[in-house]
């Protein structure tokens, strides 16, 4: 590994920033150029990321890059570092953006110039958050990412979003600033009140991963929002939340007494999973299902990461999150097609089959979708130290049964088997021409889940 290899990390951050500046100068009438440049930048960014991954896995050493000036806070410097976890998170981020820009080719023209500029800025900020080794810098860049995301919500998320966006921005600011402030406390205070301070420090990660559970107003924000907004949440907020979770856990590992965390983690995970399953059952909008399923598995992800008795399950957790993000992106895309079909009272069996396929990805079955990664950590999930094994297994069985019920119910809720081939429009709209891409994407998702889990099995825990 040479110094130029480490500079690739900086390139991952710089490319989107300069592209955003360049794109912002393009005239409003030339949206074709904007789309082409944006997709080219995403492709080039992926190429650099894969190059970094190749170096990472071939040399088995982390890539690091350091800025020798203090950034923001006196003795913190900008320190970028790419390990396996960061690589997987960035890959998950890219696949979520892939579903947005490559499957929906007219999104740039529909949303306008500012949308593309902010997407590129979000990409730079999210990359900085994931790669940064300094916790304070990660939290600050994550906060800026949320601000930009909320700006997009307010601008493109539909009407009546102003209050939800305002309250959300203040909520995230409060959580992030208290987390940074807690890091400044002297060690003597941590020795006395470490239990409470640890959860305050963790709050930025938990809120991002379990937003509907931690922030009730978020339902208003995502309600009637377009799929674009939800996919952006999946692409940028979830990976940054996961990165913060790992970063906070590693920074504060000295203050994480083993006997303290398990009960809280277990209760948090049970409650989040149960709430998410109920949400899936009661949600009538097919566009929100993907998000609720993702939150369900996020709770399990948090359980894997935070449980101090199972340090080795971090790799299983990150692979599960990766599979969850790409499955969620696919489900959201199909959900949008289904919503459009229902809105126009157009019945297309292909979309129905796609919907079934997307829901099937979420069944906790080995070898299929999320199940390929989940089954790798199943034993860790069932062996809790708080409850007796029988009680723990019972709880999880109930929750998974609830999930399966919710998935089956959602399939039949949105599909009307009595009507076949009936169309009020009398022609085949252009949107349905992308169904072939959707099937190709489904195949890619299945393959990725299998490949990533196979790699995990081959290399071991």
């Amino acid at each position, binding site marked *: 590994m040479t110094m130029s290899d480490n500079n690739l990390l900086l390139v991952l951050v710089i490319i989107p920033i300069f592209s955003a500046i360049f794109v912002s100068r393009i005239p409003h009438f030339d949206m074709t150029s904007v789309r082409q440049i944006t997709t080219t930048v995403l492709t080039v960014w992926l190429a650099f990321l894969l190059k970094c991954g190749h170096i990472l896995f071939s040399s088995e050493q982390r890539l690091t890059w350091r800025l020798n000036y203090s950034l923001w*806070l006196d003795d913190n410097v900008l320190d970028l570092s790419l390990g396996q976890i960061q690589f997987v998170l960035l890959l998950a981020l890219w696949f979520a953006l892939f579903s947005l820009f490559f499957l929906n080719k007219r999104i740039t023209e529909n949303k306008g110039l500012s949308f593309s500029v902010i997407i590129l800025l979000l990409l730079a900020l999210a990359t900085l958050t994931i790669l940064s080794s300094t916790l304070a810098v990660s939290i600050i860049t994550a906060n800026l990412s949320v601000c930009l995301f909320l700006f997009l919500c*307010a601008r493109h998320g539909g009407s009546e979003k102003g209050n939800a966006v*305002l309250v959300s921005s203040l909520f995230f600011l409060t959580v992030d600033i208290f987390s940074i402030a807690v890091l400044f406390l002297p060690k003597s205070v941590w020795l006395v009140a470490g239990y409470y301070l640890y959860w305050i420090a963790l709050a930025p990660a938990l809120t991002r991963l379990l937003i509907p559970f931690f922030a009730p107003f978020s339902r208003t924000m995502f309600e009637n929002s377009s799929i674009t907004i939800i996919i952006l949440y999946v692409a940028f907020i979830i990976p940054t939340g996961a990165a913060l979770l790992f970063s906070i856990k590693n920074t504060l590992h000295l203050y994480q007494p083993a006997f303290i965390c398990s009960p809280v983690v277990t209760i948090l995970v049970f409650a989040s999973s149960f709430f998410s399953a109920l949400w899936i059952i009661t949600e009538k909008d097919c566009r929100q299902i993907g998000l609720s399923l993702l939150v369900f598995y996020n709770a399990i992800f948090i359980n894997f990461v935070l449980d101090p008795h199972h340090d080795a399950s971090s790799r299983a957790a990150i692979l599960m999150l990766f599979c969850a993000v790409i499955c969620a992106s696919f489900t959201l895309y199909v959900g949008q097609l289904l919503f459009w079909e229902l809105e126009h009272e157009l019945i297309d069996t292909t979309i129905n089959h796609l919907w079934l396929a997307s829901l099937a990805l979420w069944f906790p079955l080995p070898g299929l979708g999320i199940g390929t990664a989940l089954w790798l950590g199943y034993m860790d999930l069932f062996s809790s130290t708080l409850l007796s094994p029988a009680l723990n297994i019972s709880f999880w069985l109930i929750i998974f049964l609830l999930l399966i019920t919710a998935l089956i119910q959602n399939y039949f809720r949105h599909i009307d088997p009595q009507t076949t081939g009936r169309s009020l429009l009398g022609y085949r709209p252009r949107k349905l021409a992308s169904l072939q891409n959707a099937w190709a994407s489904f195949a890619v998702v299945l393959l990725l889940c299998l490949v990533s889990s196979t790699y995990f099995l081959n290399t071991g825990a």
Partner: protein
Amino acid sequence: MLNVPTPLLVTSVTLLISAVLCLLLEGAGVQEGFKKIGNKPHIALLTFLSIAGVALYSLSAPVSFSNPIFAFDQAAKWAIFFSCLMALFCLILSMLQSRDLRQERGEKYALLLVALLLVIVMCTLKDILYFTICVSLWTLIMMALAAFDNYHQLGSEVAAKIFIKASFLLLSMATAIAFSYLCSGSTQFASIANAINDPLNATLGKIAWSFIWILVLSFFDVAPFFWFHIDYLDGTSSYLSTAFAMGSFIPGSIILLRMIEANQIAGNASPILLNFLGFFAMLSMLIPGFMAIDQRRIARMAVYLFMLQPGLWLTLTLANANLSQATPFMFFMFLVNVAVAIPGVILGLNFLKIPAHLEMTWEDYAGAGRKHPFIITAWLISLSSLVGVPGTLGFYIRMSALKNLFLNQYFLSGIIMILSIIIGTAPVARLAVFLFAKSPHYEFSSLHPTKHTVFLFSCAVVLIATGMLPQLLWQLIAILPNHD
């Protein structure tokens, strides 16, 4: 004999001569044969050049510590530089605002120069008597400028309010000076602080010192003493608002520093004084934020956010139990924030052309960000720096204060600091939602040509750059001559 440091003498004489020249040119301008020389653009140019010259000289002038009344130290040099910077912003705002520069009154420039002169002198003082004289003259000038302000209907009312407050301030200062003479035979801060240690004069010394503290806090716009200043900042033209902010925030911050220094040298850093200052610091961090949320007009909301800065400086100085802990650096950063963010906000308020019958409320600004996204974003960055949004210089200053507060076990003050960021961000976030998320009701157009928006954009860039790389700016400053 008053022994004035040479750099102070040079800057004062320069400004005084420039003011006299402005008046002479104004008088000559009406005479036949001299109209080309005495026109207003020339007067404005003379004013601009003299202020710029004083600013550059102050950065490179040697420091002087030996004087009992004046202190031309590193802090004074920066205070003078940033006062001149704000005065230049004043001039720019004045020129942007006037419809025809040739119709302007030349006396305005002379008064601005004299006001700047008084501010520069205040930045170097360690004596309450001379401070009182400077404050009274400066207040007179501000009153005159407000009363003659042709562009604002409330000018006379504002001048009357300032007169009332100034009268109270001067009466109280006279009382404080009397007590100072009684207890120490002198009006210097060091002598008064030392008098508290003398058993014979302790009571009188404490009375005098308490009076002076309240008055300086009042001059510095610390809550709850800022009410009349709110009306001045909101009720006058933009260039006068900038001049007033320059005259109260910068000298006030450095006078506070000198008083705390005098207290520490005399060994009087008692918990009572720290608690007293801490109480006002907490009030100043919270009250303006709450008031800002409640405002109808955006200009008044912005003015209340200006009032967060005195509380921030008070908290910063208290956070350093030992003044040698990074105070010079933090004072420099505080001055950058005040001198760049406040003019940036005022420039942004004057950017949009809005129908005259509107009061510039929240709804009136709806959708303006969609028409001018970059400039409105720059304006929001300046507002964000005032309240401490992450990524800006204001956030860096607050986080540095927070570290020191926790290190010195001031946990309540630390929590208040965090709450002030959140409360202050609420109106700015709400404004951002109105600017970018709502549909516009009016056809917005820019009041000024695009080239003038360079200043607004520059303010935003400086605030972001110094917020991200503050140490880099500090290293750049270190290469200046006569820099400690």
